[in-house]
């Protein structure tokens, strides 16, 4: 069933059983453990989770940018356009990075070079991946700036002369300069104000269609995901616990963690005295609970949850959940 789905969907990215650890002096940090994730061509996937859920590590893993040491990819495969990125050499990965997969980082203040004008920073990317002259690459850089809504006159300015929102536009221009098939945006608007965030999200939505790129949007904000993604994956303690179409996930979330996450966001349309909270804290990634990593905080947990690591199961067509308790509940309801 799952196999059939994969073939139908023309997968651009297929991550299987990815495990990434950081081996530090104090112990092994299990940042990502047995992660499975698929992304079809032209889709945008929202990767949602709290700090320390392993979202950024997953993204860095795809890019081949895990700092090593201490980071080690201990198992798994990352198929991109049918080829396993983890078997590629560093030289091959350089062509992939920026050319086929581009990344937008969270903080535009730190991801730009402060002593280089913005046109040169965009041109650098273009020259690395395309066979063009210096002059041509600078012209193309100017075109990219106009595309993201920055006037051509400003192309010789330095990053500090731009506001936060404008800097993030420059970063987007760099990322899209070589027409990548996959764009990974790691909290692209977290450092920005709401009205500026709205501008940048609007721009990203437009450009995604224009460039026909697939996108992974990493965020902790379920509102942004509702706005621009098609698929959603909820991460908890290094694993995907729920994966579904946006509509399915927002209308009837199934994993207890996803439900808790939705309930802890203050609602604009409703007055509630008390917010529902998930008791306790995220587990220490050096010392993860046995079985289901969420079981110590879960209201639905049964004895088995502490023993067996739950596998993802397709509870409804296209709706994958890693929770056997919910699976049984749903199965019972359907059997009746």
């Amino acid at each position, binding site marked *: 069933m799952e196999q059939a789905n994969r073939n139908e969907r023309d997968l651009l990215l297929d991550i299987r059983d990815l495990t990434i650890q950081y081996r530090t002096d104090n112990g092994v940090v299990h940042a990502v453990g047995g992660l499975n994730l698929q992304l079809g061509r032209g889709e945008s996937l929202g990767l949602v989770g709290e700090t320390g859920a392993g979202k950024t590590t997953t993204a860095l893993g795809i890019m081949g940018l895990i700092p090593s040491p201490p980071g080690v990819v201990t198992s798994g495969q990352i198929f991109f356009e049918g080829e396993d990125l983890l078997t590629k050499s560093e030289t091959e990965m350089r062509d992939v990075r920026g050319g086929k997969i581009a990344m937008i980082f969270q903080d535009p203040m730190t991801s730009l070079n402060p002593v280089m004008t913005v046109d040169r920073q965009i041109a650098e990317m273009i020259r690395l991946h395309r066979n063009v002259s210096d002059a041509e690459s600078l012209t193309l850089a100017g075109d990219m700036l106009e595309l993201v809504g920055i006037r051509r006159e400003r192309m010789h300015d330095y990053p500090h002369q731009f506001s936060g929102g404008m800097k993030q536009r420059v970063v987007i221009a760099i990322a899209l300069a070589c027409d990548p098939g996959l764009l990974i945006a790691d909290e692209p608007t977290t450092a920005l104000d*709401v*009205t500026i965030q*709205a501008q940048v999200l609007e721009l990203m939505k437009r450009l995604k269609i224009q460039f026909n790129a697939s996108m992974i949007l990493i965020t902790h904000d*379920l509102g942004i995901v509702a706005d621009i993604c098609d698929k959603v994956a909820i991460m908890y303690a290094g694993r995907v616990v729920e994966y579904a179409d946006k509509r399915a996930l927002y*209308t009837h979330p199934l994993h207890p963690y996803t439900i808790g996450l*939705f309930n802890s*966001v203050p609602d604009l349309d409703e007055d509630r*005295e008390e917010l529902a909270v998930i008791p306790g804290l995220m587990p220490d990634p050096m010392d993860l609970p046995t079985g289901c990593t969420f079981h110590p905080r879960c209201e639905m947990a049964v004895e088995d949850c502490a023993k067996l690591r739950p596998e993802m199961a397709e509870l409804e067509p296209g709706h994958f959940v890693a929770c056997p308790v919910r699976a049984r509940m749903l199965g019972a309801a359907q059997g009746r």
Partner: protein
Amino acid sequence: MTDNNKPYIRVENLKKYFHTKHGMLHAVDDVSFHIEKGETLGLVGESGCGKSTLGRCLIRLLESTAGSVFLQNESGDSYTDLTKVSASVMKDLRRRVQIVFQDPYSCLNPRLSVWELIAEPLIVNRVFSNTQDMRRRILELMSTVGLAERLENSYPHELDGGRRQRIGIARSLALNPEFIVLDEPVSALDVCIQAQILNLLNELQREFHYTYVFISHNLSVVKHVSDRIAVMYLGQIVELSGYKELFIKPLHPYTQALLSAIPVAKLDVQKERIILEGDVPSPIEPPDACRFMGRCQYCQDICRSRTPELKEIEPGHYVACHFAGEVGL
């Protein structure tokens, strides 16, 4: 709520300017409002709009350039102007007015243990003459804010953001204040921890009847906690009203754009998104004009030549716009 003529705090024409090498920066520019006893006033706006500066001026962590902050005396019939009193009087008043800072990572001394951090305000103000009483009070405070007793000898770096913020809250509660400025108390925290802290602040207010000023850039959070909300833009309050009215019927074009820009975690919400052009202009030497004119779709000649005053358009609903009530609805 108290009599409208005798609010708990009255802020009148408060200004805070900073000298910069490019000219005078108007961080807070002539704001007036009042705060009722026991209420939560939300203060929202984008970075650089002056909300934190205003929060600090309210409790005189910054000296104001002009204007007054009148705090009702304990008897309830007279006021003290916090901006004018001497340092020694202010020191006594500090027991009544407190602040919780945004970043639980930088506002705690990393070399003090939890116990020492919470003891600090008690020691500085010589509240207790013997250690037993002080220890009892500290443990009581720790349990009030939900810190386990076993953490008393831990250091901030050993704790997560939520627990650190709880220390910050315990410190501000130590002297039994009446008025607390909460400066982005949950912005550095994850949603689940954020929900825990918001619930805690709510419970504390119900139990001890604190008056809060809650500063945040997150409108959903502000709506959840506030009784009334003031929206700031470039050093001025552009709209102030009850929290429900503000969300149902925003009257200032900036508030309308701000509310429409919030991403909502729901599908099929029919929302006309107003995308503002450009960025917030510079707060250095602003002209006598509406601060929002450059980004406002309804801008007229009068907006470019005169600063609109904050006027009461409907009972309790104040708006600073020449065309309030006429535009956008």
